[in-house]
């Protein structure tokens, strides 16, 4: 039977109970600055934050983190975060107090706030525990950094310069929270796929311009896990992460406020890096000859370190403060360079002794990826 219905569409619910939560409250906060500002934006959290700061101070001054008992540190810090979350949730006004997404964002934000505050105390012990592995991996990085990707098992189609991925990963050591570090891994993989996509697009364009059309048998490969592992090996080798094992452990054990941790794309990226690192550790690369030295022009590691070492002093990462996902990685890198320049100018006024360090920045900037000949960034 045919029946008529009238549908009334409203711009917003009549009852305030159903009023939508602001979108920014549902956006995950990544950088330390974002997390701090987010928590401070709720006046009702003032008491909870002060209490949290006291507890963090107590942890830092009274608790001894031991390399063999890191799980105890995990449970203490987690308990601290959970208690704070419960306390803050009681103070949120309706209807936000029952919003599950806001709860998830808030939990992640508190976790990052706590982990940033205890980073130096905890991470130094993690580094101690994994010093042997980190040292061995770094030695492998030195060995592989100049090897052609094909020699490590990268398919020829995917063998192209990956400067943005290397820069992104080289920044890992300067980040303090496990969530920031995890995001860094994700962005590194994103950069890899973007660079390769651009390279494949160039090849496609080259064939079209050569033949005037794209032939039916033009083969367009997809990146699979078999491809990604050796690609990540090359990126790790060139980024020369000093404490990758420690960082991976830190991410795996100190991100607890995520229901999707072992399942989503971030989890996949983390596992891929773990797999690449383990593959590097287990594999004997002594068969690689000196003749396989790469001639690809990449940013030198000294230049990379000159850029990233300054960021060690910066507690928050301006790169990560750009909340909009619409920002491209190119824009983030521009933002990073601007930040370095700003930081540099401040240091120039304060420290005469840092002259040499500052001078080392300029070659890095001169050779930064924006002026690289690759020209494959979107």
């Amino acid at each position, binding site marked *: 039977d045919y029946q008529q219905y009238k549908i009334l569409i409203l711009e917003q619910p009549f009852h305030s109970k159903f009023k939508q939560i602001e979108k920014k409250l549902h956006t995950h906060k990544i950088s330390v600055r974002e997390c701090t500002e987010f928590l401070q934006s709720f006046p009702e959290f003032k008491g909870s934050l002060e209490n949290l700061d006291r507890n963090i101070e107590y942890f830092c001054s009274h608790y001894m983190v031991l390399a063999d008992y890191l799980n105890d540190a995990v449970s203490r810090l987690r308990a601290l975060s959970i208690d704070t979350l419960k306390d803050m949730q009681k103070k949120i006004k309706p209807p936000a107090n029952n919003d599950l997404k806001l709860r998830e964002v808030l939990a992640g934000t508190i976790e990052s706030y706590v982990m940033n505050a205890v980073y130096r105390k905890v991470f130094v012990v993690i580094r101690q525990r994994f010093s042997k592995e980190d040292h061995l991996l770094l030695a492998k990085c030195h060995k592989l950094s100049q090897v052609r990707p094909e020699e490590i*098992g990268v398919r020829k189609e995917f063998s192209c310069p990956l400067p943005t991925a290397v820069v992104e990963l080289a920044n890992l050591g300067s980040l303090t929270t496990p969530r920031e570090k995890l995001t860094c891994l994700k962005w590194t993989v994103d950069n890899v796929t973007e660079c390769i996509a651009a390279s494949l697009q160039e090849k496609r364009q080259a064939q079209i311009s050569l033949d005037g059309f794209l032939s039916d048998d033009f083969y367009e490969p*997809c990146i*699979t896990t078999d491809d990604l592992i050796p690609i990540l090996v090359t990126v790790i080798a060139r980024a020369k992460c000093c404490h990758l094992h420690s960082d991976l452990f830190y991410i795996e054990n100190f991100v607890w406020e995520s229901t999707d941790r072992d399942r989503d*794309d971030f989890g*996949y990226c983390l596992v891929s890096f773990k*797999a690449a690192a383990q593959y590097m550790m287990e594999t004997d690369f002594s068969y690689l000859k000196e003749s396989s030295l790469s001639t690809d022009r990449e940013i030198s590691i000294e230049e990379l370190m000159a850029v990233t070492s300054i960021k060690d002093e910066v507690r928050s990462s301006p790169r990560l403060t750009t909340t909009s996902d619409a920002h491209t990685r190119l824009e983030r890198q521009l933002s990073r360079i601007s930040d370095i320049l700003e930081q540099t100018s401040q240091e120039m006024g304060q420290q005469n002794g840092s002259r040499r360090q500052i001078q080392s920045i300029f070659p890095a900037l001169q050779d930064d990826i924006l002026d690289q000949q690759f020209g494959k960034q979107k």
Partner: protein
Amino acid sequence: MSNSRRNSGTRPGAAGGRIQQAKLVLLGDQGVGKSSLALRFVRGQFPEHSEATVGAAFLTQTILVQGQSLKFDIWDTAGQERYHSLAPMYYRGAQAAVVVYDINNANTFNRAISWVRELRQQTAVNTVIVLAGNKADLASEHRAVPTEDARVFAEETGLIFAECSAKSGLAVNEMFMMIAHKIVGKHASPNSSQGVQLTGGEEASSSGCKC
């Protein structure tokens, strides 16, 4: 300190409904078509002339099963022998595993059997495991693994069995739908409880389960 929890969960959906989530891993030799199967299921296409060229290693697809939304997080795994020791990192906590072999290559079937045995030992007993014989479109000329052999092995080990083709789309969606039914705890139609019906090609397989 490692986390050994299962990777299933529910989370609030956009409209306030609950979405169940499941991690699904693809295992099998290199070249058997693991990522092609995933791409066929997720994008409804074979990657030969794909617009999006990269990113077959991790895919997601949300489907509607018996009125409930289920989001698959599909993890590709490395098939090369040299990466074999890394596989447990990938399949840890998976709710479902699709072990793929090429029905035109007997060696890949033998490797699939090893993968199934490993999964049985290393994963939870309620992990849904599918034995998928891919490249059925080439079977008329090149078949090397008899359907009956694979079916018998699947029945003996309690697997879902399917012969499919990522290229033509044959039985691909049906296979994933069956996994979804198993995961949400409801059975598919009675006549497809332990195998995928090989009906139709492109049209049959591309209908019904996309959301």
